[in-house]
């Protein structure tokens, strides 16, 4: 649709409706809302053209009737960008997973079921790591949304010649504004107050949820780092260097320990071969502990990284990984 001024009404409506729905995260909802606004503008333009206005003037009036676009964007974002996974699902899921991991940890002591429970334990740790990542993503998203909302608010104020009283915790914004002396004055100040109030109210995504996610970020980091550390110390096979020979079956070899030395019954071991083919016996730890235990002449001995016992060198998993990493660095230099 064009008029004498070569004004493409269809394109203008499409563009403006897209602009209004811009801040809606969900693609499907964004498309629905955009279509609804486009249809509204069409109806308004039609009504104005019946009054004798040209398309371009009718479109301008229809957009004016919709009000400030920034405000509309923000209100739509508040309505449509709420967190999709409700809290009553998230928190029980975390608690359930933590309980599952704890129960499996105790069950893993039972030798006959060990392999199954090791697998389930791994799944539990992975789930916790996934939840940790989820919280981290939400945290950074909440930070981004809050910053975007504040930017829009400042843009609105600047556009309309308003100045804002910036209260804590937005004092840092003062340095970034072009008018450092902020005095509150505006005809429609209620809008500005309400937008700040909207940001502060518990019903919105912004500040309060950001506070929640600040706390959740710590949980997220902790879960993620804890999970990675678990795999590094308890599952050294996953981090085996490429030039290592394949691991033999853990139960098919007998370690030739010196007389008087006995391994603790709950310690599993595997045999790995170094690049120069010297035998190195690695003790794989049960989850979490870092020390290797063995009995020598009735005395409990602990190995932090490695210990030479006759022809056998006992390694802790973390000690062995550090050794391999060191060898790799030496080769490079």
């Amino acid at each position, binding site marked *: 649709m064009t008029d004498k001024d070569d004004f493409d009404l269809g394109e203008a409506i499409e563009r403006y409706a897209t602009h*209004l729905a811009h801040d809606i995260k969900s693609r499907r909802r964004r498309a*629905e*809302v955009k*279509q*609804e*606004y486009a*249809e*509204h503008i*069409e*109806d*308004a333009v*039609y009504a104005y053209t019946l009054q004798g206005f040209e398309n371009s003037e009718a479109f301008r009036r229809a957009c004016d*009737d*919709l*009000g*400030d*676009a920034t*405000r*509309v964007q923000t*209100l*739509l974002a*508040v*309505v*449509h960008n709420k967190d999709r996974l409700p809290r009553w699902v998230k928190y029980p899921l975390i608690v359930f997973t933590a309980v599952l991991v704890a129960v499996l940890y105790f069950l893993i002591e039972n030798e006959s079921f060990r392999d199954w429970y090791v697998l389930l334990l791994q799944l539990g740790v992975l789930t916790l790591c996934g939840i940790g990542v989820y919280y981290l993503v939400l945290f950074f998203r909440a930070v981004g949304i809050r910053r975007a909302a504040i930017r829009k608010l400042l843009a609105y104020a600047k556009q309309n010649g308003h100045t804002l009283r910036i209260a804590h915790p937005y004092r840092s914004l003062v340095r970034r504004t072009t008018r450092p002396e902020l005095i509150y004055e505006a005809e*429609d100040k*209620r*809008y500005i107050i309400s937008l700040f109030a909207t940001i502060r109210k518990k019903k919105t995504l912004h500040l309060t949820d950001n506070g929640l996610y600040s706390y959740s970020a710590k949980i997220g980091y902790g879960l993620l780092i804890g999970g990675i550390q678990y795999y590094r110390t308890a599952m050294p096979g996953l981090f085996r260097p490429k030039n290592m020979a394949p691991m033999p079956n853990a139960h098919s070899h007998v370690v030739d320990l010196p007389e008087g030395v006995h391994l603790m019954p709950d310690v599993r071991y595997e045999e790995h071969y170094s690049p120069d083919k010297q035998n190195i016996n690695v003790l794989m730890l049960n989850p979490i502990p870092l020390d290797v235990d063995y009995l020598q002449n009735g005395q409990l001995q602990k190995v932090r990284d490695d210990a030479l016992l006759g022809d056998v060198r006992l390694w802790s998993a973390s000690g062995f990984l550090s050794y391999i990493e060191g060898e790799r660095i030496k080769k490079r230099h």
Partner: protein
Amino acid sequence: MKISKELLKGSTSIMVLKMIAEGDCYGYQIIQKIARRSGDVFHLNEGTLYPILHTLEKEGYLESYRGESETGRERKYYSITAQGKLHLAARIEEWCAYTEAVDEVLAGESV
């Protein structure tokens, strides 16, 4: 007479619900109905109507569907749910009590 936004803010959603309760309508129709019914006293901010409609829909007071308008074009219609009717009734009762109380206060001693 221009009505202050303060007064309008509290009554917009109840007016919107009422218009829809009288018959399914789409956004632009709601704006026109309210303006006509109020004798052009209320001119709702058209851009903020849809966040209100979407909020009411999310809360379960409205349902939406695609239907053909009187101009022959397809539009998104809203209809009120049973829950919406109950909510509207409660809000109207609240509003009547509020306006009656304000009237009583204002009808006091003349200034």
